[in-house]
């Protein structure tokens, strides 16, 4: 921060504050509009006109979605993948990272090289698809869960965090006769809580937002994840395409689309203000490593 004498509010400050307010508005503003349309009563919403404040407030669009089988199924699918996926991802990443974080382990260099190679070069989507096909995981949520479970980058960041933990506690535990596994669960994991929190969020957000991987491996609309459903709601000309036909009261798609977008963002929006510092510290952990 630059040094200045006195507390004058200069032109530079005005520019800076104005720009930042503008940027904040651009980031958040669109959602105010989306929110407003989603709460507009479908009776008064005319697709070709612009409203900022709902002409008539209504929860009809939301009720429609929450009662629509396809939407709730997709929500369920995403929730399952997110919860199970995050747990598995954390388990694999942290156990592997701790396993390779000590210097005196034969094969450590081999493991390190192994994972660095995967960071540099990947086989591509077609061999990945073939693998899932051979594992009979096509159209299964496990394909998504395992495909995104971890990555070399995640392991490297967690490992460098675990390396930075003080060794005295581990040494004391080893002298008391504990083995590595017990040390991992009783000592390392409690110490690694901030790192666990950050990666819990990273993985959870990753699984909740998944689109392409889901599109790639799942063709059965009953097994669609939330983002895939939202996308088809937006892109397809009629909401019939998402299997929501069979409703007597056909609401105009606009309000439903906007409500769907808000609903799919909802968990992240709710969690974000409280856990923001864990989101950020995860990034800084990564940045320190590079």
């Amino acid at each position: 921060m630059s040094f200045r004498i006195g507390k004058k509010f200069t032109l530079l400050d005005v520019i800076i504050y104005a720009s930042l307010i503008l940027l904040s508005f651009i980031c958040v503003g669109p959602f105010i509009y989306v929110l407003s349309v989603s709460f507009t009563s479908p009776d008064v919403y005319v697709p070709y006109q612009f409203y900022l404040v709902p002409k008539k407030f209504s929860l009809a669009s939301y009720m429609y979605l929450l009662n629509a089988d396809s939407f709730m199924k997709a929500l369920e699918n995403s929730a399952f993948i997110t919860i199970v996926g995050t747990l598995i991802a954390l388990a694999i990443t942290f156990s592997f990272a701790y396993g390779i974080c000590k210097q005196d382990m034969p094969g450590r260099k081999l493991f390190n090289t192994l994972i660095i190679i995967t960071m540099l070069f990947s086989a591509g989507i077609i061999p990945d698809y073939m693998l899932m096909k051979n594992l009979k995981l096509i159209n299964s949520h496990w394909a998504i869960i395992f495909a995104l479970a971890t990555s070399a980058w995640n392991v490297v960041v967690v490992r460098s965090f675990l390396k930075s933990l003080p060794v005295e506690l581990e040494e004391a535990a080893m002298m008391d006769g504990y083995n590595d596994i017990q040390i991992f669960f009783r000592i390392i994991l409690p110490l690694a809580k901030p790192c666990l929190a950050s990666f819990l969020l990273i993985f959870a957000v990753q699984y909740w937002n998944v689109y392409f991987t889901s599109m790639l491996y799942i063709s059965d609309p009953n097994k669609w994840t939330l983002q895939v459903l939202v996308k088809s709601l937006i892109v397809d000309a009629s909401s019939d395409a998402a299997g929501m036909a069979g409703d007597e009261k056909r609401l105009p798609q606009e309000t439903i689309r906007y409500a769907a977008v808000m609903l799919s963002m909802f968990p992240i929006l709710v969690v974000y203000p409280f856990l923001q510092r864990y989101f950020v510290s995860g990034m800084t952990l990564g940045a320190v490593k590079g």
Partner: protein
Amino acid sequence: MSVNTAITTSVSSRKPFKDRTRQLWKNIKKNKYRYVLVFPGLVWFIIFKYVPYSGLLMAFQNFSVRKGIFGSPWVGLDNFRYVFSSTDFMNMVRNTLIIGGMNILFYFPLPIIVAVMISEVRHSKFKRITQSTIYLPHFLSWVIVYALTFFLLSVDVGLVNKALTSLGMERISFLTNKTAFYIIITCQTIWRETGWGTILFLAAIAGINQELYEAAAIDGAGRLRQIWHVTLPGIKMTIVTMLILRVGRVADVSLEQVLLIQNPLIQSVSEVFDTYAYNYGIIQGLTSIGTAVSAFKSVVNLVFVLTADFVCKRLGEDGIF
């Protein structure tokens, strides 16, 4: 005498093979529980990363699902030759370069500028609220970003076109316009990543010695000059490193981002290697061609990234590895 000691020391410092193997086994046994911990992750990497590498063989075959990898005929580099000589290939290269180039020209400076601005704010509550709001888009899926793009630019129901019609003007179909495509992609990236990108630069700015500012002020530098002469040089290496790394990743266009917005009318300007692999390899089932394209892109990416890393290290900075 000194030669003899030299020889005896060098020979005796290498323990005999038997002892070293015994030492190795002792180490393995000592670490045996760590191997248990490593096991799930290792299995995961082998199954989900290394086994697919063998799938790269399909790029050298005329792969048919019925015959499998071992039954399909080998065609050597024919698939690559086919791809390289097609117009699609030139399109893919051009599109990748344009998207990457615009990203570097228009997106890259923004997190730096915003980070400098944030660092100049004294009002800590304002700072925190601003940071919270600008980080948010990064956590939203590309589907949401596309949804917002659609709500804004759609020819039927988009906000912009609603405004145009109410002013009595013609509707414009942005999402099918070839030039607009590159602009839209860049704007999407800017919207989503600018805020998040400031984190790294803010950390770098925080590392600048405050005394340098005071010294500059004493020399008569106003705030702008202080920013120019202290802040920016202070984060110069961070900027250079990030730039090099960004250039190194130019081949890595976000598949989801492009795939969502892609439609037949803008196919020629939006096709990049990964989308080609998806559209032709998966959707149309041309497995070998798709694999060849993906493999090519991976190799190119690898070369660029390693070069970027090398250049960074030559400049004295840490690379990625």
